[in-house]
């Protein structure tokens, strides 16, 4: 959950934050630039009015001398801001302010505008031939064509600085917002993590625990409440299974004991006629079967609720299987079959040896029952990836494809009606329950041409 949800959130957050900062700076710089241009235009406009007043007083004939006389003082006064360039309408130079230093103001490119109905002018940002960025306005004042310019050097500098800052902000803001986002999601998702941790702790053996519902009434506290409700129902269901097991034990097993003890007692003296004796012995046999069914149903109820107490110990799989093989060979030989153990892959696996051995015994008993006399029963064990994989295979007829799924269900009699002695129909279901409670899984494989019935189960390795 953390890897996906919070990383997605952080990534999203950081991207949005970075884009926002970058765009704000970039757009801001453009807005400021426009503002500065407007200011420059205003200054130029004011200047043109002042210049118009001065030029009105120029003596005739309009010589360069006369113009200089009229405007030089003024141009020197404004030399810090304004460049002056006055020509005749045909382009003859009349006056150049000193601060131009020989440079020229270029012709502005903008559209012609009129100002106060009297002056028409054009404005644009340009570079002088000398490479200086200027805002230039060209005003027609009487018989003069005046170009006024103001330097945009500092303004351009300021704008470029802001833009550089915008670019530089991309990695910086991205990095910072990753950190902030991580911290934020760590804090925000803490209740979720608490929920996750609690939920993981809650197992069959520990159903009392509940998630602590946060004070706030937000999504997370609603989720916590919802989960707690689910745990309540789960606990109730568990309790029912446990109570059923308890009731079953007490209500069935104790009377069954009485019946058994009494039947044994009657049989004890050897005084009964043969017929009655046989009947009672059969009853005892059926009682034994009934006991076995009760035992297995209880076991199933427990494994289904994952409430079978397991005495897990870390065990060497090779040692365990060699130990089992000793018994398996004896049992197979007794049943007229051959048992072989293949594969000596060793791993440390934590499991309850008596229950897992019972799984193997159940499978072996089936295999002996359904394989032909002299047939080979092969137990193959290997370590595949993170699993201990054990496979038992016989040379029997196998089962139809359609039955593979259902064989592990209760009261399923595989190969029923083949004239073999009936089992309880619970053996494979018990195997499944035991393996699954160990965190493994079990399945039957279809018969291929050279193989009989195969059952494969796996248990996870340590860690």
């Amino acid at each position: 959950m953390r890897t996906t949800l919070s990383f997605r959130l952080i990534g999203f957050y950081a991207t949005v934050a970075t884009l926002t900062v970058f765009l704000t700076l970039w757009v801001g710089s453009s807005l400021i630039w426009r503002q500065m241009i407007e200011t420059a235009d205003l200054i130029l406009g004011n200047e043109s009015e002042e210049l118009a007043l001065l030029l009105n007083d120029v003596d005739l004939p309009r010589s360069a001398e006369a113009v200089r006389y009229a405007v030089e003082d003024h141009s020197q006064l404004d030399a810090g801001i304004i460049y002056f360039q006055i020509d005749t309408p045909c382009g003859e130079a009349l006056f150049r302010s000193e601060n131009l230093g020989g440079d020229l103001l270029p012709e502005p490119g903008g559209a012609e505008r009129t100002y106060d109905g009297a002056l028409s002018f054009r404005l644009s940002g340009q570079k002088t031939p000398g490479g200086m960025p200027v805002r230039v306005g060209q005003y027609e004042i009487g018989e003069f064509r005046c170009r006024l310019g103001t330097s945009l050097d500092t303004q351009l500098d300021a704008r470029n600085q802001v833009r550089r800052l915008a670019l530089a902000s991309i990695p910086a803001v991205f990095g910072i917002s990753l950190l902030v986002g991580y911290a934020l999601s760590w804090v925000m998702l803490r209740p979720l993590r608490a929920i996750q941790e609690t939920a993981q702790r809650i197992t069959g053996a520990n159903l009392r625990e509940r998630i602590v519902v946060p004070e706030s009434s937000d999504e997370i506290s609603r989720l916590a409440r919802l989960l707690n409700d689910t745990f309540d129902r789960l606990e109730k269901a568990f309790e029912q299974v446990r109570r059923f097991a308890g009731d079953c034990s007490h209500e069935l097993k104790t009377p069954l004991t009485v019946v058994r003890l009494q039947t044994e007692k009657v049989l004890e003296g050897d005084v009964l006629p043969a017929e009655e004796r046989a009947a009672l012995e059969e009853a005892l046999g059926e009682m034994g079967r009934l006991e076995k069914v009760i035992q297995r149903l209880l076991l199933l109820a427990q494994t289904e609720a994952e409430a079978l107490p397991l005495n897990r110990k870390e065990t060497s799989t090779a040692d365990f299987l060699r130990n089992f093989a000793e018994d398996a060979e004896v049992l197979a030989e007794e049943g007229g079959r051959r048992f072989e153990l293949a594969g000596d892959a060793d791993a440390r696996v934590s499991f309850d040896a008596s229950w897992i051995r019972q799984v193997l015994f159940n499978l072996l008993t089936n295999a002996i029952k359904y394989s032909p006399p002299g047939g080979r029963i092969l137990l193959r064990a290997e370590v595949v990836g993170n699993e201990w994989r054990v496979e038992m295979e016989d040379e029997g007829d196998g089962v139809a494809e359609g039955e593979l799924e259902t064989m592990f269900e209760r009261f399923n009699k595989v190969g029923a009606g083949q004239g073999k002695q009936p089992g309880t129909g619970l053996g494979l279901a018990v195997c499944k329950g035991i393996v699954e409670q160990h965190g493994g899984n079990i399945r039957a494989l279809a018969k291929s041409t050279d193989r009989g019935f195969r059952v494969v189960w796996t248990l996870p390795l340590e860690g």
Partner: protein
Amino acid sequence: MKILIVEDNRKLGQFVRKGLEEQAYAALLVENLAGAREAFYADEFDVVVLDLSLPDGDGLDFLKEVRGGDSDASVIILSARGDVEDRISGLNLGADDYLSKPFSFAELLARVRSLTRRHDRNRKTVLDHAGVRMDLVTREVTFGDSKIELTQREYALLEYLLKNAGRVVTRTQISEAIWDCHFDMETNLIDVYIRKLRAKLKSGDDGTSPIRTVRGVGYSMG
């Protein structure tokens, strides 16, 4: 030998009491925890047969009291709960044995008997009975004059039979001792091993073996 039976099912309790009395044990039946406490502190018992689900409480509490006191009575838990969990906690609390319902009387009797003789024979290094001699140190087994080769399981089984020589041991007891398995293994493994042992321990002249079958119960040595 005095035995206290704590069992709330009257029929079952009386049946066990009668059965034990027929075997010449003195047995007293009580049906709840209160009765058990009263009887236990008024008299001295060698064995307590204790049911766990009692109308006025958990038998395990009584077990704690018994083990907390200075009595050295042996306790056999008799439980319908039959859980591994209950077995473990029962044995941890100091019970000497644990028998799941339903059981056969012979099973109970075998366990009561083995409790009364639990402490003998356990420290010997050589077991010797009915012509079978087993050296626990060298792991050498002889029958009569001939040396016998045994597999690991056969050896363990014979050792258990010899240690309980003269007494009936049930299949469940054997599977607990040899396979550490507290439920029915649902195989005929034990019978098969007994047959193999018998084949190896056959007297030449009449073909009999010192291992006896006790029908419906188990086996005994000699």
